[in-house]
């Protein structure tokens, strides 16, 4: 039976209850790695269900049939005092070993398949740097650098080189494949691929009508300069206070749109506001020291500490995949970052200061009033 049909059957079996069909589901694959992983899972699942059916029903049988009702009296004879049966034991051990062997074979072949970069194919490379609590994505071959959201072309394998700038993290896009940790001092990597056919087959399940802020977005909004799907990823290794908020998004685009995206990312920043407003926005951005950490290419804001904001306007999220990219959310983020992501670096090194008594004073270094906030928000969201 072709793999696709097997997957579909398994998917249907498990999701008729609607339990595993979410946007980060591991059993609703959109790529060959996730599909291979799921198919080995199915082997283990069926073996387990088989053992469960046999052993479980025998156990229920014993409990029901041999249950003693009423009191034990002096007249109640003892049951047959069996000690065991060597034949039964040996047979059961052999069956167990056999079943383990059934699972072992696809496991070993799967480990090597998943853990080997596809040869003979045009593998794209992305360098991922994880840090508390955002993601940096660099395309060394293409000269693109972005943060928290990146694009891949459908149908082409992508190798992710995983580096950590501080503590342990883990890079996980469940619908494309399993995860791999980011550890300082270690060069981990994994490869993933988005399959155009699987994406197309899933099309009817993706919501297209709800592309509103805060709603389920699976497609990029129509007014974006490039079109495609959004997949969701998340850090999966506890990395500190805001681990729950360290998410990211993967844009899966067809070849044409991917080329458009790459060219778009390489350009310098350009605002959709008129020149006066844009200049005011940039001025507020720099005066409040945002530029000392954040880069906006083509301007004097050239910080490398925080996420690159050059094309922030065409990013779908704020604060690393946690909030949707709306003016309201962005305003809340830059006014009260500690309320969104406790302990985040922007707050601790930028906003936080200790006064003479050693007490924390928010916004001591960076004092934003509403006017400055609005100006900055307008400016950043205009950077398409």
């Amino acid at each position, binding site marked *: 039976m072709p793999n696709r049909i097997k997957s579909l059957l398994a998917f249907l079996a498990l999701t008729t209850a609607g339990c595993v069909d979410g*946007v980060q589901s591991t059993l609703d694959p959109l790529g060959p790695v996730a599909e291979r992983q799921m198919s080995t899972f199915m082997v283990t699942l069926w073996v387990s269900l088989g053992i469960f059916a046999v052993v479980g029903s025998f156990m229920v049988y014993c409990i029901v049939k041999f249950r003693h009702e009423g009191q034990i009296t002096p007249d109640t004879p003892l049951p047959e005092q069996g000690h065991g049966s060597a034949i*039964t*034991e040996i047979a059961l051990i052999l069956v167990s070993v056999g079943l383990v062997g059934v*699972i072992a074979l696809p496991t070993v072949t799967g480990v090597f398949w998943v853990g080997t970069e596809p040869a003979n194919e045009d593998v794209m490379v992305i360098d991922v740097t994880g840090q508390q609590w955002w993601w940096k994505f660099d395309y060394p071959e293409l000269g693109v650098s972005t943060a928290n959201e990146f694009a891949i072309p459908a149908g082409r394998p992508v190798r992710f080189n995983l580096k950590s700038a501080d503590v342990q993290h883990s890079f996980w896009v469940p619908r494309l494949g399993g995860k791999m940790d980011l550890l300082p001092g270690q060069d981990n990597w994994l490869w993933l691929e988005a399959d155009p056919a699987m994406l197309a087959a899933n099309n009817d399940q993706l919501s297209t009508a709800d592309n509103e802020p805060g709603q389920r977005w699976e497609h990029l909004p129509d007014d974006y300069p490039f079109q495609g799907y959004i997949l969701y990823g998340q850090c*999966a290794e*506890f990395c*500190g206070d805001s681990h729950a908020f360290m998410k990211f998004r993967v844009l899966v685009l067809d070849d044409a749109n991917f080329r458009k995206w790459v060219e778009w990312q390489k350009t310098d920043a350009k605002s959709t506001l008129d020149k006066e407003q844009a200049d005011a926005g940039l001025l507020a951005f720099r005066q409040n020291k945002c530029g000392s950490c954040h880069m906006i290419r083509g301007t004097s804001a050239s910080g490398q500490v925080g996420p690159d904001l050059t094309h922030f306007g065409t990013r779908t999220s704020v604060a690393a995949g*946690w909030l949707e990219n709306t003016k309201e959310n962005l305003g809340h983020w830059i006014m009260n970052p500690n309320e969104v992501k406790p302990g985040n670096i922007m707050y601790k090194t930028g906003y936080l200061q200790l006064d003479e008594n050693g007490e924390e004073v928010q916004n001591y270094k960076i004092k934003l009033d509403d006017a400055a906030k609005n100006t900055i928000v307008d400016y950043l969201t205009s950077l398409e």
Partner: protein
Amino acid sequence: MSSTNMHIEPAPEKGFFDSILPRQVEPSGVIGWLTTIDHKRIGVLYLITALWWFLVGGLEAMMIRWQLHKPEYQDFISAETYNALFTMHGTTMIFLVIMPLAVAFFNYIMPLQIGARDVAFPRLNAFSYWMFFFGSVLINVSWLFGEAPNMTWVGYSPLTNSTYTPGMSGDFWVVGLQILGVSSIVGALNFITTIINMRAPGMSFMRLPVFTWMTLITALLVILAFPAITICLVELMFDRLFHTNFFEASAGGLPILWQHLFWVFGHPEVYILILPPMGMVSEILPVFSRKPLFGYPLIVGSGAAIGFMGFTVWTHHMFTSGLGNIATAAFALTTMAIAVPTGVKIFNWIGTLYRGQLIMATPMLFALGFIYQFMMGGFSGLMHANAVHDLQQHDSYFVVAHFHYVLIGGALFGTFAGIYYWFPAVTGRKLDEAKGKFVFWFLFIGFNGAFFPMHWLGLNGMPRRIYTYSARNDWGDLNFVVTCGAALMAVAVIIFFFDLFKTAATGKLAGRDPWDARTLEWSIPNPPPVYNFKETPHVHSLDDWWYTKYPDTLHHDDIGLDATESPYEDDDASHMHPSDHVVDHGHHDEHGIHMPGGSWFPMFAAFGFFVGGMGLVFNGQFLYGDVIEIVKNGANVSEWVRYDQMATHGYEVPYLQTLFWRFWIAIAGGLFGVFSIFCWSMEPIGGYNIHFDDEDDGVKAKDTKTPPVQTAPVEPAPITDPVVPVKADDKTEVVKVEEAEAEKPKKKKKKKKSTKSDDKVETVTVGEVEEKVLDTPEPGEAAAKLDAEKEEESDDTNDDDSDKKEEK
């Protein structure tokens, strides 16, 4: 002991310390508990302390579940608090609940099962307990300072180094776990020595009860696995306190080293957690099926295999750490291999049920629940072993589902089965059956309702250790179901504690051997007398107590005897199995039974190390100068907690020069601990001798000044336990007891005394006891009859005298 038939004589040896630190002769009151070295009391202390931390860990879990019951919920607690809650929940439940509950039973039950009077090193045993107590206090005192550990119970580096976890939370965790580790290792050494050296005559290894076997294997795992975590904790402590670079990647250290060292400990640790409950279930199923354990040698062998193979699988916790394909595949295979002995155990347990007479009392319900839920946990474990899909499952709620199935569904249910089963052995009272069934069903339904949906959540991509989650993922509905299940579990636990207190205070006495059980701990009165066995029993087979009651059910080939003879009919030493050695332990002579005195020093030593540990945590924050200032000017507690030396002292404190002053508390505490251990090595045994008045051993009864230890009221024995003192020459009363079975043929029973002084063989006529199966809720008639027989002999009994109403 206020019974009229024995008296105590304080032991004459007194030492230097007794003049400064007087010890009680017989333990009494609070001091009796603080200085106890009696394995039974230490077992009770472990149980009470562990049950307290169970409530604390459960409260932490409830808060976690409330936090997660709906998406994007941030109005309840902060993310930092949530991270501390799940860290402490894991650390508490593993180190402060499941392990010490098992140790409580190792302490109380194991020596009784092997026919010993105590463990090999009683004061070391007390030291183990106090280290556990103070370690648990140390790690939880962090809450009071707002510095509860929040880096997960596995504490991966580099998150746990002083850059990313500044302050004291990491130090509390590192120091607390080391103290707990010492407690575990020392206890394990004690149990291994006890089991190897102090078994009753005739108790060969393959006649050990399964629970004792699991004690031995668990203790061996502890002494082999804990050094690994000790190494990584010490290295982390040095990184944090002394700026070494074991895990500092920028200086050439290896963060992944932490993971390897931790999991070399961590995987055997999970077998340490599950083997004792497996042992308990292996005891309970045969008793409540009224037939032997199916395949005893394989149950023991699989336990040993699991223990050994547990050291070959640790890297399956690290499949996503970038090990490379060969290591990943190899550990996937070893992990699958360990499923085989585990499956063997499950098959054997179900085989025990097959063709039995299943009595659905509460211990049996928990044991059956254990089998089902542990099997489910085994399936999800097998799914993890598949390293390919594990890359999806790792660090998701699928893992949380798996380990809670094996740890709650397995270990906790097994431990509850043990509590319900052995409660009468310890207190003489059975827990309430109706409430027990309620507790079981609510716990079973609540637990499965809480943790089965987590399999779906994990497969649906929900990572673990997250404070909240987006509404986009559709995880909210199942999370709500999980929280409801957790609430049901809480109700069950509350009823359980209510029942525990009520029965311990006012429960009806259950009488001897209420479950008609198989092993030696049921052959003595319950609660046991302080000396356990008056005479060390001679063991003739596995499940010796059962075959003493039902000799006709013995398969002779089990003990290598000629088919026509059974040792229970002829206690001639020449018929014993070749492995029976006739060295007597604890046969009392003219000195009576010697009971060792209590000791203050184990507690003092543990307290010293506790203070030392606190000194390590509070290093640099309580400088000597601060003490002077506080004494002079007073200070708020919150002001003591500063780890910024510049802010605290207004000056940069040079590092090496102040090493002593930063750690003076640690040094003082450690020295006090070591000094206490030195004192206990010099301390004489003290204690007292027990003389039985019916024996002429040349020591007259003396009035004892100390009041009787046991304050439990003496309740009259139920009518069905007619223990009638029978004179040696009066056989008619024996016949009276047997009147009801007049129809049954009688067998001749010969008993030979084991004292050298008397070679006379007495013949006692007894009724056939095989058919006299007990009512489960009624006290042990068979046991009572055996006691009646034994009263025939005016001296030298092989078992304890139940007609003498001894109180505990």
